[in-house]
């Protein structure tokens, strides 16, 4: 059996999920109570404009052909027209994508840097100093709203200590690194809760594995056993958790971008809600969903590449 044995089935599943995603985003627009044209136009409603909108959205056609229209446009990379920005929704979204991507990657890296040492140490010395304090710290931080933590960070580091900027995105790579440090840290702390606990549990399980005893009996130095055998296997178990929870990072990003006024997709999403810019809302939702599905697939592939057993276990 090949190590990527279940991948073809995964791909079929992927296509079905992608199809479902388009269905959900399409039907989102149907949730608008009453007349969508009226909701979009608000006080500037006139009959001509309403008819124009009905035509652009295809609202005057039967629902299945509306979906066909939606899908046809989607394959041409057309997410509809942003009524608020008077530009294609794809253009608007493309303008806001970079800060979000930067923030997601940045906080994912920070989260790994924070949680790998803490989680591993907590697992090695159960009930020890690190374990106890991490437990308390992360119980509290799990209950903290990300946006509130962001504000507290601004209060401490920007308003009082003047170490980091209040808001904004900065210029150049290092400018981004500097400006986005607090936002990324805010998201990373929330994310770390899950990672630390998973890595701790994985470390504890791995320590009890027979191959650890074997390695010790062979006379390998303990530090080497820890690094080469325990750590690597424990981290392997957390890779899945890590990939799957990148979805969680996206939720964090939406909130934190709004706290720090970053020009990303999260702020765009929220402002589009109040602007009733439905095509943009639809587009951002679709984009995030596709992003998550791709990350999940990537996680599966990475996992199968790292650990030959994975591909076969899932098939069973």
């Amino acid at each position, binding site marked *: 059996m090949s190590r990527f044995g279940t991948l073809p089935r995964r791909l079929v599943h992927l296509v079905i999920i992608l199809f479902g*995603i388009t269905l*959900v985003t399409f039907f989102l627009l149907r949730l608008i109570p009453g007349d969508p044209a009226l909701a979009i136009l608000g006080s500037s409603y006139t009959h001509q404009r309403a008819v124009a909108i009905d035509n652009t959205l295809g609202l005057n056609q039967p629902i299945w052909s509306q979906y066909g229209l939606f899908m046809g446009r989607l394959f041409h990379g057309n997410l509809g027209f942003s009524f608020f920005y008077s530009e294609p929704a794809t253009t608007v979204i493309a303008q806001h994508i970079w800060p979000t991507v930067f923030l997601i990657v940045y906080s994912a890296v920070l989260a790994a840097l924070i949680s790998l040492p803490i989680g591993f140490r907590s697992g090695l010395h159960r009930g020890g100093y690190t374990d106890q304090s991490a437990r308390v710290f992360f119980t509290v931080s799990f209950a*903290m709203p990300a946006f*509130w933590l962001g504000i507290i960070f601004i209060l401490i580091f920007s308003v009082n200590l003047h170490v980091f900027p209040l808001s904004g995105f900065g210029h150049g790579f290092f400018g981004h690194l500097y400006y986005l440090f607090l936002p990324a840290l805010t998201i990373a702390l929330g994310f770390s809760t899950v990672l630390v606990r998973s890595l701790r549990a994985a470390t504890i399980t791995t320590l009890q594995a027979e191959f650890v005893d074997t390695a010790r009996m062979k006379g390998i130095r303990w530090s080497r056993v820890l690094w080469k055998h325990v750590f690597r296997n424990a981290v392997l178990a957390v890779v899945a958790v890590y990939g799957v929870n990148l979805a969680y990072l996206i939720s964090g990003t939406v909130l934190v971008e709004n706290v720090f006024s970053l020009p990303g997709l999260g702020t765009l999403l*929220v402002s589009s809600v109040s602007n009733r810019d439905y095509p943009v*809302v639809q587009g951002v*939702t679709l984009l995030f*969903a596709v992003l998550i599905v791709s990350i999940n697939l990537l996680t599966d592939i990475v996992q199968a590449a790292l650990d030959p057993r994975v591909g076969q276990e899932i098939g069973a």
Partner: protein
Amino acid sequence: MSTTWATSPSELLLKAATKAAGRRRSVTRRRLTLIVGLAMLGVAILAVTFAPLLASASPTAIDPLHPLAPPLTPDHLLGTDQYGRDVWSRILYGGRIDLAIAFGATSVTLVGGTFIGLIAGYIGGRVESVLMGLVDLFFAFPFLVLVIAIIAMLGPSIFNMFVAIWLTSWVSYARIMRAQTVVAKKQQYVLAARALGYGRLRVMFRHILPNTASAVIIFSMVDAVGNIILAASLGFLGLGAQPPSPEWGAMISDGQNYMLSAWWLAAMPGLAVVFVGVAFSLIGDGLADLLRAGER
């Protein structure tokens, strides 16, 4: 078939907690976590129930002589906001909204999701494929983004926030319950019940449900933390409770504008969220320890 694809962070947290918990900790210590959590939640519930007795002013009363008074000012324990409204009173009354969401949203999704998971797991076949496919589909969206998108379409309000949560967050329960049911289905007590000729409904609700409910109940506590934070987050973004109402997230959002001069406006309501969140977390941890230990 359901796969190992996306799972919510809270589910994973729960798994990690229950895996590592238990053996080493004594019974009293386990109970202690639960008791402290219950006590904290009790305090919060009593405080918001008896808000009129504890509050020093009406949550919307304006005190034009003392705008932005710092905490520990006489008559204003936690200070006042830009209109001179008492922050402590607003937190008490706002807690009614946030706690109502925690209970209202969580209980409905707990019951609905459990029911769906039970049916999918027990009946199996095509029903299971369809229901679990739906669950996988929902997991493909970032939870917050989907909730925001639904609220965007329905219009921002507290009720639509409930609807958005109801529509989306049953999936975790369904997934957990289905997994439990699939395992239980092959166990002897279920086989015995079926051999006795009991009907499907009776086996599902009288036999499987009572024996497997602990997992979803523990999870509902973690979920309640998530819902409290979600309610506050949506209030903060202006998509939940609307401004004059003293919802905690809306208060924090309001306070962010006065961050430079009045830190307490944003800080205090957040502490309230953390307090209630920690309470639910501790109850969840305590229940997990207690119920899992009982299963061994």
